[in-house]
């Protein structure tokens, strides 16, 4: 059996006295798209951030591509990771944020080439050529020289996706990528993501877009209060939810 891309075994996360994740158990297979849905405050975003070591797991184990996240296991003891090692592991995981977080002092092209040149030490010509290809892929080939402030929200988010893809990630994390967008701009971002999913990218998507989840997701996970309430094929869950809390949530969003 091949190792799944993401494996969570009893993942807990506390912020002080507050427990945000209460034992998450799930796996994301290679090439699979998983959508995390649930009410706000249910821990979806926190779990996503744990996968990318932006938050440290407090209990349980979380593996990405078979490698323990955030810690190193030596003997039967866990050691904190050196920031440099953590940075190295993050290179292979792309992340797209709700508020885009593009670098405003760089052009669209520079946003995309920054990490490949500085982190991966790619030659500039190669990084630029790759960035131009990615800009075309997200439909913004003519915006290479624009600064983020001159772009619409949807365009910024597509640039952000291209920036994450430039590192050639094996896993893409999306944290409510369309929640900050005007309704008429949501489609263009979802189209890019669908294209990406069709291309076989492994994706974990926190979203409120049930239409997208139904169409693209291989697995739908409903989370509430820091735990997985229900998971399975999106059609089954959306049409025939088993759990009361899932029913209550879906009746509000569908």
């Amino acid at each position, binding site marked *: 059996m091949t190792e799944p891309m993401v494996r969570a075994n009893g993942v807990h996360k506390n912020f002080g006295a507050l427990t945000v994740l209460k034992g998450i158990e799930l796996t994301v297979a290679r090439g699979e798209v998983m959508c995390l849905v649930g009410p706000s405050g249910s821990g979806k975003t926190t779990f996503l951030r744990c996968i990318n070591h*932006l938050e440290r797991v407090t209990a349980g184990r979380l593996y990405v591509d078979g490698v323990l996240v955030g810690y190193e296991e030596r003997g039967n003891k866990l050691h904190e990771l050196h920031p440099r090692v953590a940075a190295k592991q993050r290179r292979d995981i792309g992340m797209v944020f709700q508020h885009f*977080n593009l670098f405003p*002092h760089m052009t669209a092209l520079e946003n995309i080439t920054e990490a490949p040149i500085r982190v991966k030490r790619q030659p500039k010509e190669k990084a630029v050529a790759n960035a131009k290809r990615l800009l075309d892929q997200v439909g913004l080939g003519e915006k290479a020289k624009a600064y983020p402030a001159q772009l619409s929200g949807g365009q910024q988010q597509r640039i*952000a996706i291209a920036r994450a893809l430039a590192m050639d990630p094996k896993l893409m994390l999306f944290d409510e990528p369309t929640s900050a967008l005007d309704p008429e701009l949501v489609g263009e971002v979802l189209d890019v993501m669908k294209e990406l999913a069709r291309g076989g990218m492994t994706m974990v998507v926190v979203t409120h877009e049930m239409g997208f989840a139904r169409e693209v997701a291989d697995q739908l996970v409903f989370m509430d209060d820091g735990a997985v309430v229900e998971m399975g094929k999106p059609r089954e869950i959306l049409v025939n939810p088993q759990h009361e809390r899932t029913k209550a949530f879906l009746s509000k969003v569908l």
Partner: protein
Amino acid sequence: MAERGSTSDGTELIKAVPLRRPGRWVAATVILVLIALFIYGAATNPNYQWDTYRKYIFDSRISTAAWNTLQLTFWAMVLGGVLGVLLAVMRLSDNPVLKSAAWAYLWIFRGTPVYVQLVFWGLFTSLYPHLAFGIPFLHQFAHFDIQTLDAAFLFAAVGLGLNEAAYMAEIVRAGISSVGEGQSEAATALGMPWGLTMRRVVLPQAMRVIIPPSGNEVISMLKTTSLVSAVPYTLDLYETQRSISGVVFRPIPLLLVASTWYLAVTSVLMVGQYFLEKHYAKGASRTMTARQLRALASAMGRENLGGKG
């Protein structure tokens, strides 16, 4: 290009009669008259001693002193800037010792007058007559007797620089805090280590907030150098004009000479600040530059022509 007087599709542009504003004209006239009166008075008042002013304005002692002042400003600001960044990073760190050390530094250097600090630096050699490098209590590599050292310039620059660092630290800290958390998070998610994130993502954006007050600091420093007589360092602009006016007994024209030089240097620094601000404003505004607008207009013009032809 659209024809003058009409838009590209031939609609006539509005030509409205401008509103009359008599109040503006009255105020402007009053101010111009007052300025003219002052200039006339200054030019004809013999007490200004303009002949002495002309005699000393390009005196080599004065221009050398202006150069010394500029050098003092430069080195004090370099020291203040570097130490300021270090202190700002210390204050923002999670290490409680670093944090409180930076806080204590600020407390002392911001809480005492710079004049008093400069006097202390003048007395440095009385506090520590010898400097030795080595392992404490064990071994000494080198030994300097600094009492004999003529280091008034050094002490003046260090005194001003260490004082400045306290102010620069706060400016840098404000700048770093002004950059949203999402920025360093995005950089971290791309696998950028802390130093690279700081250098490429956070600091360039912080500069937009840091530069205007730093420009103030440079200009303020240029003028604060007139206090270095406390060390005592006497070759700066202010002390030099004082020593000349002490000989020729004409303080007014020589103060005017010094003021002219201070003003000239300040003006040059302001130009430099303008260009720095422009550089770091990259991408800050969604309004396009005149060049971008022209490019866009000509691109659209081409499309229109293509459509018609």
